[in-house]
C-alpha cells in the first residue's frame, strides 16, 4: 500500500495532465491508466464513489457533446441546421463542436476516474493523518465525526425500521421529520455524554492561548496577497508576472504561518507508516508526467476547430504520461483470503 500523500500527488498529476490536454489520444491513454491502476491497486473494500467511472463516461461524454454541439455553431463540417429563430441552439450543428464537446466529457471522466481511484485506495485514517498540526482542533472534530458515523448509521436504520413498523413510509419531504428529529436528538444526547467523558479525561485542561498578533498579521497579509494576485491575474493581463509573484508570496506566507503554528503542537503517531521504495518510484513517475505536462503544453494542445483533423501523437509524450502507471507496476494485489482459503497478506516489497 502506498502513502496517502503519494496517492494525492498521483491524483493531482492526473488532474493537471488531463486539464492541460484536449488531445483525445493522450486523454484515452490517461483513462486507460486510471482504469488499470484502479483495478490493480484497489482492494475491493475501499470506498466506492456513488457513480462508477464507466457510468460517468456514459453520461458525461454524450451530454457534453450534445451541449457543445447545440450551443457552439462553429466549424466547417455542418451536420444539419436548426431553425435560426430558436434562441441559443438555432444554427448549424457541426461535427467539430460535437467532437470538442465529447473531448471535454472525456477529460472530465479522467479527472473523475483518477479521484475515484484515490478514494478507493486511501484508507480514511491515512487521510485524517494528513491534517496539518496547526489544525489539530479540526482534526479532533473530524475524528469524532468519523467515529460516530457507523453508530449514527445504525441509529438511522433502527429509526427507519421502528417508523416502518408503525406504518410510516417516506413519500415526500414531510415524511422525513419522524426520521431526522430522533436522529438529531439522539446524536446530541451522545454528544453530551462524550463531552463529559472528555472533560473527565482532562481534555478541557489545555491552555487556551491565542495566536500571536504577528502570526495573525502574516496570515492576513498572505491571504490578501494570494487573493489580490489571483484577481489581478484574472482581470489585468498586463500585471500577470506581478500577480503570479503576489500569489506565490501569499501562499508562502500562509504555509509559513501554518508551519509555525503546527510546531507548537505536540504530535504523536501510533504505528506510523514507513516510506518505502515503492513510494519513491511512484513520486518519480509522477514528476516525469508533470514535467511532460508542464513543458509540452503546445504539443498536448489540440482543437478540432475550424476543420477537424486527426490529432498528432508524440511517443515521448505518451511515454511520459505512462509515469502515472507506476503504482500499478509496484503494487501487487492483496491475496483474497476467501478464494485462497488462507490468510490474506500483502506481498513483500519486490524492490
Amino acid at each position, binding site marked *: 500500500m502506498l502513502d496517502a500523500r503519494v496517492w494525492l500527488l498521483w491524483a493531482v498529476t492526473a488532474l493537471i495532465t488531463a486539464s492541460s490536454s484536449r488531445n483525445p489520444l493522450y486523454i484515452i491513454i490517461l483513462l486507460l491508466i486510471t482504469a488499470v491502476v484502479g483495478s490493480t491497486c484497489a482492494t475491493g473494500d475501499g470506498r466506492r464513489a456513488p457513480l462508477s467511472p464507466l457510468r460517468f463516461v456514459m453520461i458525461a461524454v454524450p451530454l457534453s457533446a450534445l451541449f457543445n454541439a447545440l450551443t457552439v455553431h462553429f466549424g466547417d463540417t455542418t451536420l444539419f441546421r436548426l431553425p435560426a429563430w430558436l434562441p441559443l441552439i438555432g444554427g448549424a450543428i457541426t461535427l467539430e463542436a460535437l467532437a470538442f464537446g465529447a473531448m471535454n466529457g472525456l477529460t472530465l471522466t479522467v479527472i473523475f476516474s483518477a479521484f475515484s481511484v484515490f478514494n478507493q485506495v486511501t484508507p480514511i485514517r491515512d487521510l485524517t493523518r494528513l491534517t496539518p498540526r496547526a489544525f489539530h482542533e479540526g482534526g479532533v472534530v473530524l475524528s469524532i465525526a468519523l467515529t460516530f458515523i457507523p453508530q449514527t448509521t445504525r441509529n438511522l436504520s433502527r429509526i427507519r425500521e421502528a417508523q416502518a413498523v408503525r406504518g410510516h413510509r417516506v413519500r415526500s419531504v414531510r415524511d422525513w421529520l419522524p426520521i431526522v428529529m430522533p436522529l438529531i436528538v439522539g446524536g*446530541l444526547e451522545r*454528544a453530551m455524554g462524550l463531552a463529559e467523558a472528555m472533560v473527565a479525561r482532562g481534555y478541557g485542561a489545555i491552555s487556551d492561548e491565542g495566536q500571536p498578533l504577528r502570526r495573525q498579521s502574516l496570515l492576513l497579509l498572505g491571504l490578501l496577497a494570494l487573493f489580490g494576485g489571483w484577481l489581478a491575474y484574472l482581470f489585468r493581463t498586463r500585471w500577470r508576472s506581478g500577480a503570479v509573484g503576489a500569489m506565490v508570496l501569499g501562499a508562502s506566507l500562509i504555509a509559513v504561518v501554518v508551519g509555525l503554528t503546527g510546531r507548537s503542537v505536540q504530535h504523536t503517531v501510533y504505528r506510523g507508516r514507513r516510506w518505502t521504495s515503492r513510494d519513491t518510484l511512484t513520486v518519480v513517475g509522477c514528476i516525469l508526467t508533470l514535467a511532460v505536462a508542464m513543458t509540452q503544453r503546445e504539443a498536448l494542445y489540440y482543437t478540432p476547430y475550424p476543420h477537424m483533423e486527426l490529432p498528432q501523437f508524440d511517443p515521448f509524450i505518451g511515454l511520459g504520461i505512462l509515469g502515472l502507471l507506476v503504482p500499478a507496476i509496484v503494487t501487487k494485489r492483496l491475496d483474497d483470503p476467501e478464494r485462497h482459503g488462507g490468510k490474506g497478506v500483502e506481498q513483500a516489497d519486490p524492490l
Partner: protein
Amino acid sequence: MLGVLVAVSSVLRFLEVAFPMPGGFSPIFAPIIIAGYVFGGRFGYLMGTFTLLTSALIIGGVGPWLPYQMFTAGWAGLTAGWLGQTVDASSRLRSTQATGLRTGVGLRTAPSSCGVSYFTSQATGKTMGATRSRILILCIFGFIWGLLYGAIINVYFWPFTGGPADQTWTPGIGLGETLTRYGAFYVVTSLAWDLARAVGNAALILVLGSPMVKALERFRRRFNFEAEGHGAPSRRSTHREAAKVEAHA
C-alpha cells in the same frame, strides 16, 4: 457537539442515496443552515466545511471540487449565523419597544457566560408568530443559498470550460463582461438543477425548521452552563474550558 452534528448531517447523505431527489437537492444543507442560525456564524462555518469533508471521505467524493464545496457550505453556515444575530437583534429591539409600551418590563437575558442573550417575551405572547416568521426567513435564506451554492461551485471549472464565446471566460475580459458571460452560462447550464436544491432546502427547513431550532436551542442551553460557587472564582474558567470541549464533541 460539532463532531456529532457533523456525523448526523453526513449520514443524511445516505438518505439522499436511498431516496433520490430531483436535481441538485441534498438534505445536508438544512441542518447546516439551522445549526449556523442557532449556534452562530463560527459554528455554522465549521459545520458546513466539516460536513462536506466528512461525507466526501465516507462516500468517496474527494476530488478537486471538494475545497469549493467545503468553503461554500461553510459560507452558508457562516451567513446563517449572521442572519440569526440580525433576526435576534431586530426581534429584541421590537420586543423592547413593545414591552416598554405595554408593561414597562425590559429584557431578560441569560447569564453573560452563555455567550448568547436570549429574549423571553412576557407581555406580547407572540412566540408562535415569531417562530413562524423566523422559519419563513430561514426558508427564503435556504432557497437563496440553494442557488448561490451552485453558482459558486461552478466557478472551479467554468474558466476552463469550452463552449459558446458569450458563455465562456477568456483572459483579459473585464469584470462586467465576466459576470455577464457567467450569468448566461449559469442560466443555461445550472439554473434548473439548482432550483431543485433551492426548493428542496426551503421545503426541508419548512418541515424540519421549527422542531430542529427548538431542539438545538434546548441543547445550547444545556451545553452552556455556569456554576457559580461561593468563594471559588476559578470554577468559572474551568467551565468555560469545559464548554470548549463540548463544542468539539
